[in-house]
């Protein structure tokens, strides 16, 4: 049986997935990336191998993806997270035609062809507005954990309208609303709404075709899922493994390479 791995080194977190040749996920792991990218890749790989009860020699091919893909020194191939997210999203939801991915510093839209190939893509440029960083800055200002943001924002009654989508200046905007006595949940709903609007404007450049699959760390935020669905007027595919989609896609690419090597 062939086993392959995908290691997705993101700006905030590093993820790894092991799959076998029946395309079943054997194990997964997520750690914080920190300052040492190569070490993060090594650590997450060791962790996923340990969880899966495997050792390095059992793995036929490793694909590195994410910004740190060239630092996955044990990797056999590097593939961008755009190709990997498309692959992973179509695997989880075969009807996927558009992927919205929101990570720590990236927001991207990918239009996927009928066979899971990338038809077009667009990413945020030179600005972290509308990414996970915006959310984490907002939650830090409100002294909340990131995981609390989603549920709390759903309790909003009168969401505020943020005047900025700048990840730095959002702090002063939030302070101004707090000074006006606005409720935390209304502010959070405003934060989600601002990011959703910016992301949708970005993704519209490639054309939003259903089904839409939402991936990346921010997809854990239920408030963001609802904000995107409301603005788009359509439901989103969101997997409990959506944070792992990049690593899963990398593992799937690795499996294709491993199988093709076996064939030849």
């Amino acid at each position: 049986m062939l086993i392959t791995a995908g290691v997705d080194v993101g700006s905030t977190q590093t993820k790894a997935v092991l799959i076998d040749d029946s395309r079943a996920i054997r194990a997964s792991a997520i750690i914080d990336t920190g300052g040492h990218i190569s070490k993060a890749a090594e650590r997450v790989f060791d962790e996923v191998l340990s969880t899966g009860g495997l050792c390095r020699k059992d793995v036929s091919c490793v694909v590195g993806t994410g910004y740190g893909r060239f630092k996955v020194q044990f990797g056999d191939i590097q593939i961008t997270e755009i190709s990997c997210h498309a692959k992973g999203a179509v695997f989880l939801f075969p009807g996927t035609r558009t992927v919205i991915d929101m990570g720590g510093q990236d927001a991207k839209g990918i239009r996927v062809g009928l066979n899971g190939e990338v038809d077009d893509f667009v990413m945020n440029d030179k600005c972290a507005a509308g990414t996970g960083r915006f959310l984490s800055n907002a939650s830090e200002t409100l002294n909340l954990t990131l995981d609390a943001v989603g549920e709390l924002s759903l309790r909003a009654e009168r969401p505020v309208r943020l005047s900025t989508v700048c990840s730095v200046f959002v702090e002063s905007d939030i302070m101004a609303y707090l000074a006006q006595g606005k409720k935390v949940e209304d502010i959070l709903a405003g934060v989600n709404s601002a990011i959703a609007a910016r992301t949708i404007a970005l993704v519209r450049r490639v054309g939003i075709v259903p089904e839409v699959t939402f991936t990346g760390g921010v997809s854990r935020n239920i408030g963001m899922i609802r904000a995107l669905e409301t603005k788009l007027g359509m439901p989103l595919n969101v997997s409990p493994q959506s944070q792992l989609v990049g690593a899963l896609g990398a593992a799937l690419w690795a499996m294709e390479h491993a199988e093709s090597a076996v064939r030849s």
Partner: protein
Amino acid sequence: MPKAIHQGLIHDLQKNLMSHYYEKLTRAAETRQEKSAWMLISGNPVELVRAFGFLPVYPEVNALQLGVRKQALPFILKAEERGYSMDNCAYVKADVGLYFSGLKAPFATIPEPSLILCNYVGCGVYLQWFEHLAEYTNAPIFNLDIPTVRPSASEGLQGKTQAGTAADHSNAADQRYVMRQLEELIAVCERITHRDFDEAKLRRIMEFSRETGELWAQIKAMTRTVPSPFDAFFDAVTMMGPLYCLRGTEECLDFFRAVHREMTERVEQRICPLEEERFRIVIEGPPPWPFLRTFRDLFSKWGAVAVASTYSTVGGLWEFGFRHDPDRPLESISEHMLQYNLTNRSFLQRYEQIRRYITEWNADALIIHSVKSCRLFSAGQGDMREYFSKELGIPTLLVESDLEDPRYFSEAQMRNRVDAFFESLAHRKSVRDREAGTC
């Protein structure tokens, strides 16, 4: 990884020519014996200025020389200290910073201007740049007001227009208007140089330009062959130095004769700038000068060769038929200024030019490099991307950095986009090849 393996003799020749050009400028700055005219690249009347013996100086070229040597930032910061905004054109700031550094660039000293000739008014920032320079240097300024070429009402996007046969878009009144201004310019040049206008000399200069244009057009047509003998973006910028700084001289013509010989041999021997030409691309927009090599490597890695580029036509559009005409000197110069340079053309005409490149040069994809500090040139590129990718179905990648300011270049972001784009192109190509049974 395919690397650029054959840079060719032309690069050495160009280096020598440009060194001589800058040595000449330095000598002129030191001796103050020669008159210099500061001009812009876009469709300029350098032939006319040369006829009076002015040494042409191009602040844009000086700025890009700072950029490509990774020396622009201190000059940009110097201009920002004086109040130029972060969002201002980085060429302008690098050049203004150079002025306030005593015109001493690390590669040359630039002579003070005897004439500031603003020959392109399509960019309001450029107009003000030259007005600022005139104020700083106290040199006389002459603004040539060149009407922008507008597509006619009947002009559509697909196939109805012919880029390069734009004579009908610019009416006779526009041409008379420009020629009248050239006559005024002649009088100004006579006053500054104390020389009478010598039409025979102008005709001789025009003949050099005519032959140079002819060779350049033939050289650019060679990239239609597979594999392309040179990269029509990264190698074309090498040829653009002599084309713009030395056009109208024998040494420029000799350079293009040498380029023509070398490229003809490369076509015959099927020599490509990369080990393997996997993708043929068209590039729109200028290069990020401070990261030229890095930018080139991003494409070389994928075996992508530019077979055409719009940037190589910013100073003149020769490949679709224009030639300087020694028998009609002023008419021909005004045609060049009005119709036959990229920047004086509308966005729709730019679309058409690119569409022709993709079709006639048999390209696989379009790459748009957008310039952060130039909204004039970049503002419509979002629509351009939509038009080519959605309406014409041509794989199109838009990336953004800057032509001069290194602070806008993020290598990781750029690499990610370029890699993802070519991953998908490579995937599509392999699927196509599989279906066609070629692999």
